[in-house]
C-alpha cells in the first residue's frame, strides 16, 4: 500500500483532532468531578507532563534519523522486545479508539438519534474510518487539514455565541479541591494526551522525521488549548453540580445559545464539528493501531488488516452492555491508567537507549 507523505500542518491537524475529540464527551464531567473548578488549568498540567514524555520520544527520533518510533523500539530493545512494545502501543491505541467511539455512540444515541440502534451508529462510523484508512496516511492527512479549518471556525463560532451563559464567578474557588489534588490528577490524567505517540508512529510520513519535534509540541499546545477552552467554557457556564452530571456538556451548552430568532439554533454547526472532529481523530488513532500491528508482524499490505481491525473494533465497541459501565468503569480506568500503555514503551526504549546505546552511537558517529 502506498503510504505517501504529509506536511507538518496536516500532521498537526491529525494530532490535535486525535487529542481534542474526547473533550466533546464524558471526560469533561469526569474532570470537573475530580478536581472541581480547577479543571480548566488541570488539563494544562496534563499537557505539560505529556510534553515531558514527548521530549523523551523526540530524543529517540532525533538520535535515529529517518526512522519511526516503532523501528526505534526494534533498534533500542531488540527485535522481539520491540515487537512487544509495538503491540502494547497497538493495544492502547485500539482501546482508546474503541472506548472513545463507544462514548461517541452513546452521546449520539442520547442527543441525536434516539431510536437508532448503537450497532448502526458504530457500523456507519467504522465504515467511514475503513474507507479513509484505505486511502492511506496521505489522504487522511489532507482530509484532516481540509476539515480542520472549517472545524476550528465552527468551534470559535460556537464558543463566541455561548458567551451569554458564561459567569466568571462559577470559576471560584480557583483552586478547586486543592492544588495538590489538581497536580496529582493532572499528572495521572496525562493519558488524555497519550495520542501524541502518533507523531512517532507516523514520523516516516513526514518529509523529515526531525520535524516530529516541533509538530508534537505544537499539537500538544493546540490540543491543550482546545480542551482548556472547552473546560473553561463549561465550568463557567454551568454550576458545579450540573456540570458533573452532563454526559455531553458542550452540546447542552450549544443548545442553550439564544441570539434572536435565527441564531438560537446552532446545534447543527456543533453536530458537524463534533462528528467530523471525532471521525478525523479516531481514524488517525485507528490507523496508528494498524501501523503498529503491521510493523510488529512485518505486514506490508495494510488493507486486509484494516478490514479485520474494523470488525474487531466494531465488536469491542459494542461489547460493553451499557453507558453507565462506560462512564463509571471503562473511561475512568482508561484515563487513570492509560498512561502506562501510552508512555511505558517510550520510557523503556529511552532508558535502553540512554544507558546502553547512546555512547556507542556517539562513538560511531564521531568515527
Amino acid at each position: 500500500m502506498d503510504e505517501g507523505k504529509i506536511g507538518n500542518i496536516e500532521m498537526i491537524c491529525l494530532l490535535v483532532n486525535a487529542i481534542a475529540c474526547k473533550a466533546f464527551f464524558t471526560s469533561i464531567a469526569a474532570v470537573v468531578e475530580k478536581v472541581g473548578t480547577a479543571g480548566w488549568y488541570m488539563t494544562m498540567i496534563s499537557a505539560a507532563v505529556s510534553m515531558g514524555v514527548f521530549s523523551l520520544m523526540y530524543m529517540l527520533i532525533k538520535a535515529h534519523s529517518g526512522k519511526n518510533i516503532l523501528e526505534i523500539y526494534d533498534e533500542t530493545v531488540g527485535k522481539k522486545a520491540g515487537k512487544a512494545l509495538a503491540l502494547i502501543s497497538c493495544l492502547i491505541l485500539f482501546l482508546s479508539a474503541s472506548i472513545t467511539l463507544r462514548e461517541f455512540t452513546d452521546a449520539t444515541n442520547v442527543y441525536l438519534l434516539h431510536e437508532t440502534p448503537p450497532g448502526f451508529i458504530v457500523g456507519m462510523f467504522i465504515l467511514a474510518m475503513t474507507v479513509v484508512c484505505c486511502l492511506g496516511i496521505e489522504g487522511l492527512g489532507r482530509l484532516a487539514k481540509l476539515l480542520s479549518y472549517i472545524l476550528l471556525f465552527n468551534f470559535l463560532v460556537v464558543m463566541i455565541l455561548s458567551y451569554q451563559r458564561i459567569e466568571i464567578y462559577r470559576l471560584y474557588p480557583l483552586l478547586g479541591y486543592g492544588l495538590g489534588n489538581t497536580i496529582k490528577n493532572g499528572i495521572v490524567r496525562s493519558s488524555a494526551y497519550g495520542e501524541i505517540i502518533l507523531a512517532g508512529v507516523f514520523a516516516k510520513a513526514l518529509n523529515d522525521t526531525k520535524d516530529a519535534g516541533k509538530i508534537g509540541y505544537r499539537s500538544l499546545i493546540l490540543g491543550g488549548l482546545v480542551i482548556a477552552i472547552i473546560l473553561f467554557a463549561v465550568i463557567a457556564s454551568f454550576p458545579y453540580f450540573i456540570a458533573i452530571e452532563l454526559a455531553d456538556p458542550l452540546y447542552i451548552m450549544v443548545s442553550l445559545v439564544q441570539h434572536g430568532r435565527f441564531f438560537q439554533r446552532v446545534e447543527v454547526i456543533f453536530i458537524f464539528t463534533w462528528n467530523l472532529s471525532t471521525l478525523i481523530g479516531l481514524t488517525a488513532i485507528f490507523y496508528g493501531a494498524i501501523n503498529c500491528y503491521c510493523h510488529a508482524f512485518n505486514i506490508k499490505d495494510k488493507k486486509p488488516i484494516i478490514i479485520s481491525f474494523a470488525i474487531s473494533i466494531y465488536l469491542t465497541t459494542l461489547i460493553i452492555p451499557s453507558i453507565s459501565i462506560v462512564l463509571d468503569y471503562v473511561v475512568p480506568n482508561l484515563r487513570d491508567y492509560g498512561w502506562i500503555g501510552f508512555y511505558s514503551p517510550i520510557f523503556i526504549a529511552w532508558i535502553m537507549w540512554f544507558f546502553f546505546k547512546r555512547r556507542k552511537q556517539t562513538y560511531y558517529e564521531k568515527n
Partner: protein
Amino acid sequence: MKMPWDIFIYKERPRKEKFELLETPEDDSNKVNRATEPEKQAYIYSDIKSNLKRIKEDFKIPLNSDVIIRELKVCGYIDAFLVFIDGLTDKKILNEVVLDNLMSGTRGMDYEEDLIDEIADKIINVGIVKKHNLFDEIESMVTNGFCALFIDGHNKCLLLELAKYPKRNIEKPENEKTIRGSKESFVEDLPTNVSMLRRLFKNKNLIVEYMRIGAESNIGCAIMYVNGIINPEIVKEIKKRINKVKSESILGSGMLEQRIEDNKWMIFPQTLNTERPDRAASLLMEGKAIIMVEGSPCVNAVPITFFDLYHTSEDNNLRWYYGSFISLIRLLGVLMAVFLPGFYIALVLYSQEMISSELLASIAGAREGVPFPTIAELTIMEVAFELIREASSRVPGTIGETLGIVGALILGQAAVQAGLVSPILIIVVAASGISSFVIPDYSLSLAIRITRFFFILMGYLAGFYGISIGMFIFFGLMCSMKSFGVPFLAPIAPKLRTSSDIILAKPIDTMKYRPDEANTLKKQKKK
C-alpha cells in the same frame, strides 16, 4: 489449479504502476510512437503491381467504393498510380495541378538521379509533399486526406497534401457562455482548432505534437503545450498514456479522456473539457497541456484540480470585485446543489427541534395530506427533475424550452394541488436544481448531481450524523484523487503557493504565480 477454498486465502495483489509528478523533472520525452514499432512495419515494393495489389487488399477495393485508385503514366511510359479518398481531397487541385503536371509536365522529362525526388522538387507544386516507404504510414495519411503517388521501380511513395472536406464554421460556444469573453468555439476539424489556439497564443514556444490514437481508427490527436513552462514529465506521461490506448473505438475527446484518466472509479472528472479557445489558451499559460482529438469540438486540459473546474473563463475577464462576487455565488450554488436536499431530509426526519416553531408548523402544514413518506416524496421529485432536464436537453431547442416550462411549472403545480408532494419540497428540489446549473463544467455538474442522491440517502439513514459520515468519505476520496499526479484539491489540500485566487479573485497584478501544483518550470507569470 484453483481449489474452492482458495477464496479464503489472501493473496497480495500486484502493485499498479502509479504516476507521481516529481519536483525535479527530466526532459527526455519524444521516444515512443505506436507507428514506429518494428513489428508493424511493412515496406513498399519497387514493383508497382505488388504495391497496387497490397493497397487494394488493405483498402478492400472494390468493396470500399470511396477509395479511388487512378492509374497513369509519368514521363509518358512509366506506370504509376494515385490513391486518394473521394470527398477528403480537393479535386480541383488534383485535376488541374497534380494530374496535369504529372501527365503532361513529365512527358519527355530527363531525370538524372531519383525520379521521385525530381517530381517532388520540379513537377508537383503542392504545399506539403512527404515521402514514405511504410504501408501503414501511407494508408494512414491517405485516410487523412493525402493523395499517395506510387511509381513503378521506386520503393518510395510521394504523399501530397490535398485535404479538403466539408466542415462546420466557427460558431458561438453553446455550453460555456460568457458575457465579456470571446464568442468563438472549437469545431470538429483538428487543424482548424490548432490554428485557433495558435492565433490566440502567439508564442514560438507553443508546441503542437500530432499523434494517432487507437488500434485501427486512425483518429488524429494533437498535444499542445508551452515548452519551457510545462513540466516535461507531464507531456511524457500524456504520450505514454495515449500510446497505451489500443481501443478501436476512440471517436472523441470524451472517450480518450476515459482511457487516460488516473482513476476510473472516482466520480469527479480528472480532465477539464472546454469548447473555448480562450480558456484553452489561459490553461496553456498556466502550464497545462491541451489534448485535441479529431472530430471533437471540445479539447481536454490536464492536469487539473477542482478549482480549475470551478472557475470559468469569465472570472479573469471581470474586475476582481465582480469576479469574487460571482465566485461566491457559485460556491453557494455548489454547496446547495450537493447538500440542500440531504439537509432538508435530515432536519425533517431527525432534528425537528432545530427548526424554529413557525417554520416547523409551516412544513408540517404543507405535508399534511401528502400520502408518501418524505424520502419517497424527495426521491420522486429529484428523479422527475432529472427527467425533465435530460428530456429538455435531448429535444430540439424550442420544444426543449417548452418542455422545461411544462415540466417545472405546470407539473410541479399540479403535483402540489393533487396533494402528491408538499410545496416546500418543490422549493428545495428547485433550489438545488437551479444551483446545479451554476457549475460551469458539465462533468462536474453531473458528478455533483449524483453526489446529491448519496447525501439524500445518508440524511435519510442517520440525519446530520449520516451527512457527516458522507462528508468524511466524500472529502476523503476527493483528497486522495489525482489528475496526472496532481492532487485534485490542490492548492488547499495540500496547501501550496499559488496566486491565491482559489475562490475569491484578487487584483489582476497580484496574480503573478502559476499554479504550484503543476510544478511548472517557470513559477512566475511575469518578472
